[in-house]
């Protein structure tokens, strides 16, 4: 088990290295920050000074090695905009993003799981059809459309909630609702199909044949098995806690990491973009790692495989 875990962590580190390198390559290829930050009409000396200042005049592979060396020592560079540490610039946005993504995740789970389980238990009834119709809508409508519709209803027409900004807790409601409803639709679909798969298994019939009433069959025999595939999708959502709000933050002018990413990319603020990509990469990799380890906990068959792989 320990060796399995270490192997997983080693793989995770490789993934992070790749993310760091890709971030570097893509951003260097996508335009000259000097022109974008100083504007097209700055004197040539200003460009040269800017490039020399940020090391952009050196060959690309030296830039990469320097960058990589700095990153591995924890130095993530400074924002080209205001000169502050990029880590600090991003770090102060993270709590704001988490303030909407964590409640949204809870909402997704609280609505999605029961809805999916219900739909599966009442398969092919009007309850199932109702839940699945709503879920397909949530699944297919893009988040910016749902966000705008919610803003139109609750902010513009009813005037109950603000449509953008981050001054009070009320400002957080619409972004949370937008992400929560869409995610709930995704979880509901996954949970439903996981439950249906499990309910068709022979061990469900033999649990009934043994004399368990249906409610106990569902709670102690169906749910633990259906949790296994559902865990995958929830894990993925945990992984996108930092990154998942780009669109919604833009729609509701929520000053989180997502919106910072959009402006930093537009401004070619390389260090900031790199830090954000690293953050996203780290949370994704960490969430996957957690899910992998959790699988072993919920599914004894995998545990044995892990032991065999690890020994």
């Amino acid at each position, binding site marked *: 088990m320990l060796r399995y875990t270490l192997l997983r962590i080693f793989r995770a580190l490789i993934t992070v290295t790749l993310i760091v390198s890709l971030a570097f390559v893509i951003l260097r290829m996508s335009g000259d920050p000097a022109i974008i930050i100083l504007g097209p009409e700055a004197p040539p000396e200003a460009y040269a000074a800017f490039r020399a200042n940020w090391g952009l005049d050196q060959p690309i592979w030296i830039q990469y090695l320097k960058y990589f060396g700095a990153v591995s020592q924890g130095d993530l560079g400074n924002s080209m905009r205001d000169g502050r540490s990029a880590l600090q610039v991003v770090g102060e946005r993270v709590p704001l993003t988490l303030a909407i993504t964590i409640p949204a995740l809870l909402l997704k789970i609280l609505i999605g799981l029961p809805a999916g389980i219900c739909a599966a238990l009442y398969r092919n009834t009007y309850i199932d059809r109702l839940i699945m119709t709503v879920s397909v809508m949530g699944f297919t409508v893009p988040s910016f459309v749902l966000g705008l519709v919610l803003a139109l209803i609750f902010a513009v027409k009813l005037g109950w909630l603000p449509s953008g900004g981050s001054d009070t807790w009320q400002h957080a409601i619409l972004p949370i609702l937008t992400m929560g409803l869409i995610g709930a639709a995704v979880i509901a679909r996954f949970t439903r199909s996981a439950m249906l798969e499990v309910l068709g298994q022979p061990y469900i019939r033999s649990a009934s044949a043994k004399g368990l009433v249906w409610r106990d069959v569902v709670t102690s025999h169906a749910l633990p098995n259906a949790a296994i595939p559902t865990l995958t999708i929830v894990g993925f959502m945990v992984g996108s806690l930092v990154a998942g709000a780009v669109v919604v933050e833009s729609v509701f002018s929520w000053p989180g990491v997502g919106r910072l990413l959009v402006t930093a990319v537009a401004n070619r603020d390389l260090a900031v973009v790199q830090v954000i990509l690293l953050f996203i990469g780290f949370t994704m990799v960490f969430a996957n790692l957690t899910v992998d380890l959790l699988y072993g906990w*919920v599914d004894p068959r995998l545990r044995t495989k892990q032991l065999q792989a690890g020994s």
Partner: protein
Amino acid sequence: MDAIVSIRNMTVDFDQGHRFVRALHGISLDVGRGEAVGIVGESGCGKSITWLAALGLLGKRARVGGRVMMGSKSLLELDENGLADIRGGKIAMIFQDPSSSLNPVHRIGRQLGEALRLHRGLRGSAAKAEAKRLLDRVGISNAAQRLNEYPHELSGGMNQRVMIAMALAGEPEVLIADEPTTALDVTIQAQILDLLRELSADNEMALVLISHDLGVVADMTERVAVMYCGRIIEQAATDTLFSRPVHPYTRGLIAALPDIVGPKRRLASIPGTVPPPDRLPPGCSFAPRCARADQACTDRQPELAGIGGDGHDVSCLHAAELATNAIREAASNEMERA
């Protein structure tokens, strides 16, 4: 013999959305105390459905008619709690694929303990001791350790033993074994069958053996019912059925068995295929595949009726004639052997 379970005129219809398809056309069957009954037929003929329906295990899409009596209780009229007491308590069931009939995420001990709690009220260390005793009883070595293992750590044969132990946990009066050895290796098959035979004798537990394997049924049971397309088409004491089969379908099944002794011969097969339940031919369902069929067979559905007085029932319009032939044949076989 007094019947412990008695099924009368059972019908099962499956809801296919826009219509109902009848899978069982009025089955009547008795199982006596401690009796071993075989139910034989090709897959899809309704042999498992009969018992799943009796225990209310077919789900909401099935509409079950007729009556199932156990003592004074009418099973089809029981509510969920009443049925739960019967399931595993009075009538236990084991299935074809033991490894997937056990829940992969729960330990053997927990799954056995569940049955002990439900039907015997045992918990904690008492349940654990009894679970261990049951595993010992079904021939699992290292019982104490096995209780802490998961189904995937055991072989198919071991898992079937666990299923049998779980069935015994409720001290049932009837054990339904639905193709209990089909998924197992031949050597393991014999062990499991011996175990079933022994347990049913020791506990005076009736055994209903559902199988497509005539050899197994001939070996294990006292009485056999042969099913075809949702009907019982012949039933008799096992010896009678195998020595003097009357229904052309039964005769076909037995003729399709290879002889172990005697000269080599081509195996006889029954021409045609089993019609699907929603496209049964008019009259006798077997008529299109039957060499003896005539116009009357496609006009009229034959009733299951007794021939002779020894509980030999056949559902065939030509039963009398075929029975005479069967007796003559049996006699000439006897002569040949002598």
